[in-house]
């Protein structure tokens, strides 16, 4: 009996370990194909149903992102003056901005072929880049790179580069500019206004 319990515990443990030890490239591959499958199957999402799209993004994609790190990366040096409370608001607003912007773009890529470039990492690596390419007819493939960090358990994405442009650090100079003009609170106000204006405009 003791032996059996031990075996069971070992099994459970290895299952848990497996879930958290998914290699970063496998993680990106799984999430990408899962999300694209869902988009291809769902007529509502294809027709621009934003509630369903958002639901898919919230459940399948967002858990794999580290928005705290993303916000700090976007803020750069100026972010150090933010209090923990201000930081919390900034993370929320920045997260909303990114989600709002890119969940709409999600449906555009559904028919394209995504190629994963060869991935190598050492067992001790805690910060990696997973490189992919979206093939498009009549043009150079679009490079999409995911930057992930070890998060215990698993890996979290903290930056995405599309065609070499970071969706995160591309905000740095605008953020710096806002902070120099109106402080951290000024930046928060701008982000809130931006998110509100997008939410109230009729969906096209």
């Amino acid at each position: 009996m003791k032996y059996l319990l031990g075996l069971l515990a070992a099994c459970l443990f290895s299952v848990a370990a497996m879930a958290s030890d998914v290699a970063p490239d496998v993680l990106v591959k799984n999430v990408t194909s899962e999300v694209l499958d869902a988009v291809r199957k769902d007529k509502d999402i294809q027709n621009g149903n934003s509630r369903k799209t958002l639901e898919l993004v919230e459940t399948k994609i967002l858990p794999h992102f580290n928005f705290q790190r993303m916000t700090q990366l976007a803020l750069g040096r100026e972010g150090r003056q933010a209090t923990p409370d201000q930081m919390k608001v900034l993370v929320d607003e920045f997260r909303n901005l990114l989600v709002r912007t890119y969940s709409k773009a999600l449906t555009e890529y559904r028919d394209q072929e995504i190629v994963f470039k060869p991935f190598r990492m050492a067992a001790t690596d805690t910060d990696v880049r997973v490189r992919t390419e979206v093939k498009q007819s009549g043009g150079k493939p679009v490079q999409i790179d995911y930057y992930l960090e070890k998060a215990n358990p698993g890996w979290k994405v903290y930056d995405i580069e599309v065609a070499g442009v970071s969706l995160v650090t591309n905000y740095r100079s605008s953020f710096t500019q806002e902070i120099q003009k109106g402080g951290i609170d000024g930046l928060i106000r701008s982000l809130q206004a931006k998110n509100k204006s997008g939410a109230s405009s009729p969906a096209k």
Partner: protein
Amino acid sequence: MTIGKVQLMKSQKNASRFKETLLVLTLSALLSGCATSGNPKDPIEGFNRAMFAFNEGLDTVLIKPVAQGYDAVLPAPVRTGVTNFFGNIADLFIGVNNLLQGKPDQAFSDLGRVVINSTIGILGLFDVATEAGLEKHEEDFGQTFGRWGAGDGAYVVIPVFGPRTVRDTVGLVLDVATDPVANVSDVPTRNSLTALRLIDTRADLLPADKVIEEAALDKYAYVRDGYLQRRRNLIHDGNPPRELD
């Protein structure tokens, strides 16, 4: 007065009005030149913002509406054919630039693309070469200079052409000088081809408009920083050294 004369006068009047507008813009840009946010990559931000606004205006009233019409009227395969046709013409000097950058294998592949697409691909209308495994590249003289070690120089927004750096502006002059379309001797044909290419390029960028509008707090800064990151990536062929936080 002949019709020709009236048209001539009209166009002269338009030209002088255009010059006036440019002058006013330049002056206001120079005056607001002190209103920069001190970004070291963008020392003439005041001027650039004025030019950016000018380009945005031109796009809103003229280029974008035409591109939208073009996009709505022509079926997707035709639009792809047009994009492929101009892409094939561009591949020639993409190959030359790859050669200048010391990448003969890529240059050879670009030349192969031109040969295959111009023949089997019927004058470049079909991109058969990509299907055959010869990937399209993106090179220009600005990138070649970058590869040779030339720095970016200041960021500049050029009328109609848009974002550049000083280095890429010099590159642009050579790109235009070697552009097969710009060298067509028959003026009406040259103009029609240039206009068609501009509209086709703009139409391809229509989906990106929405994303930029949604994403940017300050569209000018967002486009500028995106351009600078993109060029850095291109010069290093998709593998630039990671910048420190």
